[in-house]
């Protein structure tokens, strides 16, 4: 299972979106699934970015992330 990290921007955006306790529980569970299977999201092209960027939705939250062998990095949340 990969370790999960959030960029400072992702953390700030999540704070702005003010998830309720229930929503955060759902996010927790879904991200745990994502950590097991990081290809769950949809890959999309982004300005010649060498890293693979993917989008994964949990309820009203859209997570944009990248991943490697050991970790998942949440780039931003909208």
């Amino acid at each position, binding site marked *: 299972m990969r370790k999960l*990290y959030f960029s400072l921007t992702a953390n700030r955006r999540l704070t702005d979106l003010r*998830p309720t306790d229930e929503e955060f529980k759902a996010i927790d569970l879904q991200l745990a699934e994502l950590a097991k299977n990081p290809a769950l999201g949809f890959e999309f092209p982004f300005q010649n970015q060498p890293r693979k960027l993917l989008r994964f939705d949990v309820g009203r939250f859209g997570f944009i992330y990248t991943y490697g062998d050991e970790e998942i990095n949440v780039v931003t949340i909208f």
Partner: protein
Amino acid sequence: MPEVPKSISEARQNLPSLCQTAEARLNRYIITVQGEPQSVLLGYKDYQGLKAAAELLNRPELVADVRRGLNEIENGQRMSLEDVRKHLREHAKASEISDLATELGGKSGVDADTVATIMGVFFDKVRADFSSIGKFNIPGLGSIAVKDTQTEPPDKTIASLFGRTASPKIGRRAKASPGVKYVVLEPTITMKGLLEAGTKK
């Protein structure tokens, strides 16, 4: 992602295999009618990826966020999920205090920042009194005293402390956290006393 033209009759004959390769190899099939491109067959993941890219194009602030977020990750400016959780809890607590300060400030005509400062001092006093003498006196109303400490979360809610039956949903017992001690409080204030105090101006 190869784009392969297919006539509509050929597409009709081979639809299952075209769907398979569209999903597995991300092929995109341009379906032609009498030699003219008319529609596109593509895999579901490919379609979702295109939708995500299109959404980004319409939201410049999101594009800026993605760039910023990628830079931060490159520079090691990132937080673990546990740190994010902690930050959210602290922020929620600060928001609650700020919302209450705004409400009380609105009612009293005192600016919210001053109210928030006084509330901070008040909460510090509550914490200090509980730590030193085990109780907190509310002038004119009574006191709330520490009755006991326990490692299991309390099964009573504030509502039940005041003699009201809490709904099973509200009264659901929380899970015990290792190393956390819970304080059982004993109020000497009654709901009647609180209501009477509320009517005195």
